């Protein structure tokens, strides 16, 4: 602990051991080796799943290379989002400016792929070399007759959260431009689900069974024309509040669309989400169908979850995720499996998020903001957890120390949302924790030796 950076000490809180205080929403300390990404990453993850749009990264090649087809966001139709386009700026472009190249690239790609819209991501150096991305987008939009939207996602201009905002700004230019003639009063938009491993299809099916129309999915399995008419929906359901709250709030302001924050992870939160939507519509038939749906789903999953709970009871977990909102659901989902959360942290949680986590967690739990590999490794060792839940960058920390790991990030291939998703989650936790390989790892062996000596 003593080796942790001084300027980070107020970003770690141990429940019960000290009065509550936690710093957050700060810029990452230089040299801290933060697990955070950048503004561009925030924009890219939010807009990426829009499958019939052209996504072009304006800048040197790296940003496009590192984000080519890395997410498990599925599409039921076009898959233009899985291609990686870049202006691949070179030294000469840096000197002469990249506007001409961007214009030419946009025109040729729109001609070749006929997208319904184009998103142009401005990366770090675009503003510095003086490119007027807005002007190029406007010109191409006029010439090609589709929306061409600049996304101001220069990496250094804040954190991932600023990237979410830039993405939402681009989306709000689309919302309100389509016809809402065919939209029924019982209708919602799904915000903040990215259709990882087909999750949005599970959720859509629930609403269909409840008799509620889903107008637009933002942005999982997203389509430009759906987003254009999103203002016609009666209600916005916002998951992953970090990324989509900006859009929800701006739609409330501009179109009067109310929103509810929901989560589809874990059976409690999933049921809660459906009932929250139902309560909004205040329709007895919908309520009855919702009750029926929840009952049917629980009848299937509960017996199996009980079996997993029997095996997993008493195991300890650590959680480190991008947005804190997901962490709430994970703590509850783990608890429903009989597991305790010993460490929970996020890259971009807010004061309110951490306050809520504090209330939710047990005594002794470590809560951490914008952590780094050395801290996380030391917490894993200290708390001697059986499972770590995070993303690709956290995985090797767990594995190196002989700790089970579940990917709960964008790259996962298992649907974890919905009632059936909870079953997948339980199955994955079980697979991760119960594998016989741990008994061969040095950490487990030395623990056994210590226990024998004692």
């Amino acid at each position, binding site marked *: 602990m003593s080796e942790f950076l001084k300027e980070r000490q107020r970003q770690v809180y141990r429940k019960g051991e000290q009065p509550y205080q936690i710093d957050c929403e700060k810029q990452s300390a*230089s040299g*801290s080796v*933060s697990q955070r990404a950048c503004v561009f990453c925030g924009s890219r993850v939010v807009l990426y799943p829009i499958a019939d749009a052209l996504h072009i990264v304006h800048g040197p090649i790296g940003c496009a290379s590192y984000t080519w087809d890395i997410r498990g966001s599925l599409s039921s139709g076009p898959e233009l989002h899985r291609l990686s386009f870049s202006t691949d*700026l070179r030294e000469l472009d840096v000197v002469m400016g990249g506007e001409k190249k961007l214009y030419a690239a946009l025109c040729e790609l729109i001609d070749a792929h006929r997208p319904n819209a184009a998103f142009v991501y401005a990366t770090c150096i675009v503003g510095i070399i003086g490119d007027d991305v807005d002007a190029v987008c406007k010109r191409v939009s006029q010439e090609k007759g589709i929306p061409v939207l600049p996304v101001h996602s220069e*990496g250094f*201009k804040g954190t991932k959260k600023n990237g979410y905002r830039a993405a939402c700004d681009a989306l709000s230019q689309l919302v309100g431009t389509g016809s809402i003639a065919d939209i029924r009063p019982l209708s919602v938009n799904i915000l903040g689900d990215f259709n990882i491993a087909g999750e949005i299809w599970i959720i859509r099916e629930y609403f269909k069974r409840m008799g509620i129309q889903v107008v637009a999915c933002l942005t999982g399995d997203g389509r430009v024309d759906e987003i254009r008419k999103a203002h016609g929906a009666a209600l916005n359901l916002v998951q992953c509040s970090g990324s989509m709250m900006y859009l929800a709030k701006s739609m409330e302001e501009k179109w009067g669309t109310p929103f509810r924050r929901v989560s589809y992870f874990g059976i409690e939160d999933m049921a809660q989400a459906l009932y929250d939507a139902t309560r909004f519509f205040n329709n007895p038939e919908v309520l009855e169908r919702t009750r029926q749906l929840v009952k049917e789903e629980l009848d299937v999953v509960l017996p199996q979850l009980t079996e997993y709970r029997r095996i997993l009871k008493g195991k300890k977990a650590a959680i480190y995720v991008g947005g804190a909102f997901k962490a709430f659901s994970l703590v509850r989902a783990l608890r429903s499996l009989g597991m305790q959360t010993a460490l929970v942290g996020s890259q971009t949680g807010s004061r309110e998020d951490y306050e809520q986590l504090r209330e939710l967690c047990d005594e002794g739990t470590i809560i951490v903001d914008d952590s780094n590999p050395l801290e996380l490794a030391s917490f894993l060792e200290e708390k001697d957890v059986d499972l770590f839940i995070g993303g*690709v960058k956290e995985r090797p920390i767990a594995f190196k120390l002989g700790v089970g790991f579940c990917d709960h990030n964008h790259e996962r291939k298992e649907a974890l949302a919905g009632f059936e998703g909870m079953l997948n989650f339980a199955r994955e936790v079980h697979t991760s924790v119960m594998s016989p390989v741990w008994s061969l790892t040095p950490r487990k062996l030395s623990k056994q030796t210590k226990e024998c000596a004692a």
Partner: protein
Amino acid sequence: MSTIQTISQRSQLPNFVATRNACKLCAPLGASIAVRGIEGALPFLHGSQGCATYMRRYIISHFREPMDIAASSFNEASTIFGGGECLYQGIRNVTSQYHPALIGIATTCLSETIGEDVAQLLGRYEADPENAGGPVLVHMSTPSYSGTHMDGFHAAVLAVVEKLGVQQEAIKGRINLFPGMVSASDLRYLKEIVADFALTAVLLPDYSDTLDGQALDTYNKIPAGGTPIAAIRSTAGAMASVEFGRTILHRKTAASFLKAEFGIPAHRMGTPIGVRETDAFFHLLEIVSGRATPEKHQSERGRLIDAYVDGHKYVYGKRAVVYGEEDMVVGLAAFLAEIGVIPVLCASGGESGLLAQSVAAVTPELEGKIVVREGTDFMSIAEEAQQLAPDFLIGSSKGQSVARQLGVPLIRVGFPIHDRIGGQRILHLGYRGAQQLFDHVVNTILECKQQDSTIGYSYM
């Protein structure tokens, strides 16, 4: 060579301004991998936080090992007023957290574009008595708008040798070995070969342990292994430098620097993939060491030739699309040509200007049968491959979508391999690597034959 088609003859296909599914990564990534191969070293990017995070993610997905890369984490103020302060704070924080022996500070497009004078900033930092006894700071200029990850990799190796290499007495039996970006298994095998010739080598970089390490009881801040700094300091005492890569001949490299500065003979040769390129490497080791190739390696070579004979019929005349880093492509082309496979398309995102002639030099029997593309991308490769009707693709995981589109198998080699496990353990180099590649190629073709047949042959 004159009949090798070059880029200017590609008029039959649309020529896009945009890069579509890039066949390259950016320079700081290569620098980060190279720095990871130095003992006690930590890579550090002077730029936005996202660069480090994206590259960590990418490298982790291949090696499945911790890969910490620090960043100075530019904000708007540092972009406008210069990033000196966040560079200094970053170095201090990395030093206090990791206690590194060396920090490799690579620039990014952002710090290069704002014209940051990193060398001067570091000089000022090192001159401050408060910072005495701190880690060695090595600056490497790696703007992402210039070249590929391979340029970053070579720049990092050069920068470290330039910074640390000092005049010294000749060390008997010592060579420098600059292998380029090869797998962890390749590095281990190279060390074994050199030792078998009773030579000692400064292998730089050496991430065979740091990026392919063991399960641990307690977490290592910086994983054990890597080229010792003292060894890098002694590079100027070697009898010779050996450097792999035919497409880096025009540039200043660690080997050319040591030759110019200290008169160390530089043997710059092709990446030893396949028998012929490996023979050249072993021949050189025989000369440098004054010993014959040890029996162990002679037998490996003998078994390899025997295997080539056993399998020649299955592969002769087959057509392959080869892509990846330029020197990996050249090496693979050399190997494929000698077993009778035509590398109908040799493609890379790199732009050394030497790819076509290098491929031609290692495929003398295939004059006029190979299309070479420099500075290309995967959508262009897919379009061209469609016309060339290959039997298989060979290269990194990034060709998966092309292989799927064409309905042909992909033989995974090189970097990155992030849809299979064990990329760091694939052996490419030397007789042993050729043996594994050959078995893999033949078995892939046999499997296709078996699967495509309606008969269901149970032995082939």
